[in-house]
């Protein structure tokens, strides 16, 4: 067990080092870091002095080492565009993105499971056909068009919900939340739905496929023979066994959701990490880009690590495999 976790940890560290190396290359060699720090009329002597002071004359591997050490302390330099420390920029905007991602994952999980069970139980119903067709159309529509469509219906025509921003926010410690005010919650609805649709379809199709498979098995037939109620069979026996893959997929998708939030945040002008990244790409703000790359990779690595370890705990077959030297 410990050996397995240690090996997985080592793998994660290697992946992070590779990503950090790419981020370092971007950070160091894209654009000229000095041109953005010094004023227009700096002399060659000023350049030399700054080069010396920032350690840019040192050998490549020492510079990379300094980059990693700084990154471990959360230091990615100063944004060219906003003239603020990058780590501060990201941490200020992180709560907005996390609230959006979690809200959309909950929507996707609740509606995805419900619709998946429904379409699996009523396979021949007309409504099932409608839901399945809609889900196909939903997948092939680009995310930003879905967002614009929702804005048009609910903000422009019906005027029910706000179309941009986060509404009123409340500061709790360093966490700035929009979940405690009415306008904050109303602002969350449209972006969260937009972001959830892709995941919702995925979960729905997964639950449906798993349910249809499980409902054919012997133990379900046996449960029917015992005279258990339909509800007990469907939810107590069948749905329970579809949950492991569903939870895995939802967990693994959380990273993609944070990345997909780039688009949703831009459509709704949501002040999160994703919109920060898009604006940085447009302005070639290299420190922010490098930091975002490391940040997203870290989330992916952590989620994968957790899922792997959970599997290891849940599935005894993996444990035996590890013992016999996998």
């Amino acid at each position, binding site marked *: 067990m410990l050996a397995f976790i240690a090996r997985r940890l080592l793998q994660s560290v290697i992946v992070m080092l590779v990503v950090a190396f790419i981020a370092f290359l971007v950070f160091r060699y*894209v654009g000229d870091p000095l041109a953005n720090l010094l004023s227009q009329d700096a002399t060659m002597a000023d350049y030399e002095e700054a080069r010396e002071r920032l350690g840019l004359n040192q050998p490549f591997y020492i510079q990379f080492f300094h980059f990693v050490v700084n990154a471990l302390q959360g230091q990615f330099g100063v944004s060219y565009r906003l003239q603020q420390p990058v780590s501060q920029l990201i941490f200020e905007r992180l709560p907005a993105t996390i609230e959006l991602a979690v809200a959309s994952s909950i929507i996707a999980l609740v509606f995805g499971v419900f619709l998946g069970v429904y379409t699996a139980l009523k396979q021949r119903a007309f409504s099932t056909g409608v839901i399945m067709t809609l889900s196909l*159309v939903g997948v092939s529509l680009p995310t930003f068009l879905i967002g*614009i469509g929702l804005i048009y219906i609910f903000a422009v025509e019906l005027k029910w919900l706000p179309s941009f921003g986060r509404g009123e926010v409340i500061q709790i410690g360093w966490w700035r939340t929009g979940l405690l005010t009415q306008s904050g919650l109303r602002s969350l609805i449209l972006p969260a739905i937009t972001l959830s649709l892709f995941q919702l379809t995925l979960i729905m199709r997964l639950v449906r496929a798993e349910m249809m498979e499980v409902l054919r098995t012997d133990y379900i037939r046996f449960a029917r023979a015992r005279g258990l109620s339909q509800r007990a069979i469907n939810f107590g026996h069948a749905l329970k066994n579809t949950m492991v893959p569903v939870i895995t997929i939802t967990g693994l998708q959380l990273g993609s959701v944070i*990345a*997909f939030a780039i*688009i949703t945040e*831009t459509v709704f002008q949501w002040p999160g990490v994703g919109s920060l990244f898009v604006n*940085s790409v447009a302005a070639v703000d290299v420190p922010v*880009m490098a930091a975002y790359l490391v940040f997203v990779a870290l989330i992916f690595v952590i989620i994968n690590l957790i899922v792997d370890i959970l599997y290891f705990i849940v599935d005894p077959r993996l444990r035996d495999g590890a013992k016999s030297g996998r």
Partner: protein
Amino acid sequence: MTDLPHSPEQPVPAAKTSRWKTFWRSDIVWSYRRSPVTVVASIVAFLLVSMAVFAPLLAPYNPFNPATLNLMDGFTPPNSNSMGGRYFALGTDSQGRDVLSTIMYGSRVSLFVGAMATLFAMVMGVGLGLVAGYVGGIWDAVIMRVADVQLSFPAILIALLIFGVARGIIPPNQQEGAAIWVLILAIGLANWAQFARAVRGATMVERQKDYVAAARILGVNPFIILLRHVLPNVVGPVLVIGTIGLALAIIEEATLSYLGVGVPPTQPSLGTLIRIGQQFLFSGEWWILLFPAITLVLLALSVNLLGDWLRDALNPKLR
């Protein structure tokens, strides 16, 4: 794989049946005729592509020639005459540009970027996949590891990163002209892994077969074996991934342009047009947004449906 559209026809049983008849009766055409959705999708795709290709000939106005633009034509609703007295089928935008014409030129940019990016991804992915599957060993390990890591990130994120890096490397005075090629590079590099994975698998199967062994014993150059003998036999999955990849690339291009990091404003694609149109959503000029959006959806959907059909038609298990 005897039924690819361009491969030689199957053995002709009787001399009477013409080549055309054999083609008409082949499995792939049969499955095409049997699927009305595919027929409609191919017609829509054909119309949209020819509209884009022949835009300079078909478009009623040239939307990018300042001499013909008239601010008096601005915000003309669809199917009406402007204050300047000219007729616009789909209305005009804020600067009096004909929406129909901008859509035609916009799909041209979208299709060009999508097709070139897919081609780039295809050449790169197929090449690396052939090497990984045929040579194996350390090459295989390295190439597929990179592909695995890349596939676990969303393509749009990778395209954004590559785009940002390329923008930083190219000097500012050349960025305007290079933007489209940077975009093609970014989308292409974000999508090669799918091709590599499929081709590697197919190549590993082909490599075991006698004809490859025969060629090797004859002393044929491995490069020639890959190109002349293995490649034609793995072309099926490449076609399928290429078609679906084209739809994805078109959507990725539109997304990047919508985010404001895609094509330059002087050459608007469908995504740029949607970005512009969104500004007028609240003031009631819905047509500036709606028509480019419909065109984008039709284009992506029809290409996607064609790819789905191709996948089923080329899959011998489903026949």
